[in-house]
């Protein structure tokens, strides 16, 4: 009954999205306001319908109604309530429903909020938005129906994959979905602007904050995904360059390039085509990323052929590409802005270079992700493209990006003299060199790591100086230092939010370089009472405890004592958890974190474990906590940049009316 209700909601929503597309098209043709409004209402009503469908599925999950195949696949009676709820996105069909829910929410919010601002774009925005919605609703209604009945009657479900029971994995997919679907909004308005031929700055203003919010969620998704891998997958790392990770990194790369190129267009009204191309690219990569994750195309071309959703995805991707390219070409002349540079050392040239490097990384990642498919199709040989490829190809490109991150803010619009640039760079370059020499003196002699550290330190100092310069200018005018600092950020959020983001990235890079180049590891079998040394750490094994946990868990926990330089630090209890009914094992590491490094140990569960002997895998991950710290600063910066400027907007309007002088935001 509930399942029927849920499916009915899906079906109605699907037809509503088709109705919206048709009527919006008709309405735009006849310039009929009533039709356009009707199309909008149809698109907006999809959101409550998706809420209804999601509520139905959650209720089914809570009731453990195993007559519904999806409920049987992802839940079991003894799962705690919060996991039953989050099982909504624990599998393919439910994940797609959840995706639709978020897409509908974004679409409805954008349509309602921007209705009066961008009236002329709206009919076209409605058409483009409904294309996306039609596709994803069609997918969940006809290909991956979460309300489909099971062919058999089961008393107990299979339960959620234990790897997905981690808090990081519960938050990570919604973050990615929010990021992915969020990027459909700028695409929708960019395409609407193209079709309407209204190519001024309007659509960018309209979607600026949407883009930042989408980007924020995508970044959060990436960081949380890394944290989840580190905590749960038990291989001591956080990023493996696997296709699923790349699928979410690629839209992020394109979106980041877009956030930068937008500034040239706003400030100089140049490179309009390029900015639009980047929005389109981001959107297509979002669809492509979902396609990779959902269709299994990467693991094998054969999996793709068997996957039900593979072909529709491929067709939709092709159609949207053609649609986008057609409109860009058609509006090429109107988009043509007078692009000219006065100097190669200008802010606009720096942004272009930034975009070039982002595109380089994007291409290399795309190539590496797709090479296995290409190889299988053309040569008939399967290959793996793993971390060695990406580290060697992308590593240097990322370094160029970090360097640019430091230097670009020094450049000015139009032109900057080399002398001036040189003067500004000299001090920080020397400071960074001193830092690297100090590292060398401490015994670090890996030249690649030293080069990386130099770049990080150099750009870090330059970014700090930006804060210093702005604050000092205000202090000179009689403000207190703290007031000057906070007003500086309040007055130009995007600029200083951006610098915070840069600081976050540089701190993450510091951690990544440290943990990539200087990770130590060892694996050893220990008897009770024996100990092992790794780096400055010594670990003693004092036996194993076995007990039953919640659900159907069988837990084996080791009792370890950790010493550093002979001094006792703490006890660690890495454990293996076995879900006895399904036989799925989990490995939970024991970790001792400090600002210098992590001591990370797992009990190797594929070797025999007795009460007196077990095999352990130990890692020392230097500087790894800087990755998470940098991530937090990164998110903080994005929040500053994206925070609604309600108070400030009012203040600016007040100033404007009072004085008729407008201070241009940078």
């Amino acid at each position, binding site marked *: 009954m509930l399942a029927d209700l849920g499916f009915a909601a899906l079906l109605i929503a699907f037809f509503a999205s088709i109705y919206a597309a048709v009527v919006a098209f008709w309405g735009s043709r006849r310039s009929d306001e009533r039709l356009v409004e009707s199309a909008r209402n149809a698109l907006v009503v999809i959101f409550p319908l998706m809420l209804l469908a999601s509520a139905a599925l959650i209720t089914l999950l809570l009731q453990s109604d195993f007559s519904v195949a999806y409920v049987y696949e992802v839940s079991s009676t003894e799962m705690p309530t919060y996991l039953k709820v989050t099982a909504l996105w624990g599998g393919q069909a439910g994940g797609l429903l959840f995706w639709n829910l978020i897409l509908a929410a974004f679409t409805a919010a954008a349509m309602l909020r921007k209705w009066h601002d961008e009236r002329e774009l709206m009919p076209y925005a409605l058409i483009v938005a409904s294309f996306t919605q039609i596709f994803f609703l069609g997918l969940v209604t006809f290909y991956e129906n979460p309300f489909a009945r099971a062919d058999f009657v089961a008393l107990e479900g299979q339960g959620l994959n234990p790897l997905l029971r981690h808090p990081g994995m519960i938050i990570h997919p919604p973050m990615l979905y929010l990021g992915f679907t969020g990027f459909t909004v700028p695409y929708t308005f960019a395409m609407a602007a193209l079709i309407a031929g209204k190519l001024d700055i309007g659509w960018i203003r309209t979607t600026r904050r949407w883009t930042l919010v989408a980007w924020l969620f995508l970044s959060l998704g990436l960081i949380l995904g890394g944290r989840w891998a580190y905590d749960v997958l*038990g*291989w001591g790392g956080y990023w493996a360059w*696997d*296709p699923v990770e790349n699928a979410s990194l690629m839209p992020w790369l394109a979106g980041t390039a877009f956030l930068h190129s937008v500034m040239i267009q706003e400030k100089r009204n140049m490179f309009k085509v390029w900015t639009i191309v980047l929005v389109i690219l981001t959107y297509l990569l979002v669809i492509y990323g979902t396609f990779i994750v959902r269709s299994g195309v990467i693991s094998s071309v054969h999996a793709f052929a068997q996957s039900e959703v593979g072909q529709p995805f491929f067709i939709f991707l092709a159609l949207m590409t053609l649609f986008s390219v057609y409109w860009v070409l058609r509006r090429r002349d109107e988009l043509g802005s007078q*692009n*000219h*540079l*006065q*100097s*190669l050392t200008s802010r606009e*040239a720096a942004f*272009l*270079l930034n975009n*070039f490097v982002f*595109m*380089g990384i994007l*291409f*290399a990642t795309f*190539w*590496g992700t797709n*090479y*296995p498919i290409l*190889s299988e199709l053309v*040569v008939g*040989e*399967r*290959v*793996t*493209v*793993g*971390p*060695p*490829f990406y580290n060697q*190809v992308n590593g240097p*490109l990322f370094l160029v990006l970090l360097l640019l991150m430091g230097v670009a803010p020094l450049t*000015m*619009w*139009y*032109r*900057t003299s080399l002398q001036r640039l040189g003067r500004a760079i000299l001090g920080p370059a020397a400071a960074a060199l001193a830092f690297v020499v100090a590292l060398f003196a401490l015994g670090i002699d890996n030249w690649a790591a030293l080069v990386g550290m130099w770049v990080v330190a150099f750009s870090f100092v330059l970014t700090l100086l930006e804060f210093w*310069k*702005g604050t000092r*200018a*205000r202090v*000179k*005018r*009689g403000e207190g230092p703290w007031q000057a600092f906070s*007003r500086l950020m309040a*007055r130009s959020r995007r*600029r200083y939010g951006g610098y915070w983001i840069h600081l976050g990235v540089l701190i993450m890079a510091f951690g990544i370089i440290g943990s990539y180049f200087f990770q130590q*590891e060892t*694996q*050893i*079998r220990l008897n009770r009472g024996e100990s092992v040394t790794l780096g400055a750490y010594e670990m003693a094994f004092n036996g194993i405890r076995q007990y039953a946990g919640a659900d159907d868990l069988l837990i084996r926990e080791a009792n370890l004592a950790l010493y550093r330089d002979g001094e006792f630090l703490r006890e660690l209890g890495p454990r293996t958890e076995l879900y006895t009914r399904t036989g799925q094992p989990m490995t939970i590491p024991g970790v001792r974190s400090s600002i210098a490094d992590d001591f990370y140990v797992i009990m190797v*569960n*594929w070797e025999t474990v007795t009460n007196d002997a077990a*095999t352990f895998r130990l890692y020392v991950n230097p500087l790894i906590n800087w990755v998470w710290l940098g991530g937090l600063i990164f998110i903080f910066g994005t929040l500053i940049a994206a925070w609604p400027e309600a108070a400030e907007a009012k*203040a600016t309007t007040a100033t404007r009316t009072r004085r008729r002088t407008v*201070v241009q935001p*940078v």
Partner: protein
Amino acid sequence: MNQRNEKLTIVLLLLLALLCLAIPAVAQEPVTDDEVNEVARDLYCPTCENRSVDVCPTDVCADWREDIRQQLAAGRSESEIHAYFAERYGNSVLAAPPREGINWLAWIVPIVVVVVGALLFGRYLKGLRAEEATEDDDTIDVAQSTAPVPPPAADEDDYISRVEKEVREGE
């Protein structure tokens, strides 16, 4: 005398034989897990996606590790063992495509694209500048009448001066 010599020869031969037995015994030091993992790290078994053999919990990968251990004990090198697995199970077991034959493409294409792209990009930027220069010469009169905002003086830090102006005017 002959007899003594013979005896000595026998003793020496025995010693030599013992020595020969002893050499492999010395080499037969057990292979450590770390040595196995070092080799396994860059291998991916065909059944487990995206998990290298050194951290993969499946039985297949356990067998592979045992296989690696025996080959290491037999004195084979890391690259020999990698080649052995690649030959038996195909190149997909290697962490990255081998740099040979058609698979050079995997490595070369991104580098070529980035380098050629950089060259084209540089030319494009220069082109943008040249265009600007000629335009300046040709349209100097028109520019004076139509150009709304002349570019600011080159060496002025526009942002800092803006901040200063803003503060001066009060908020």
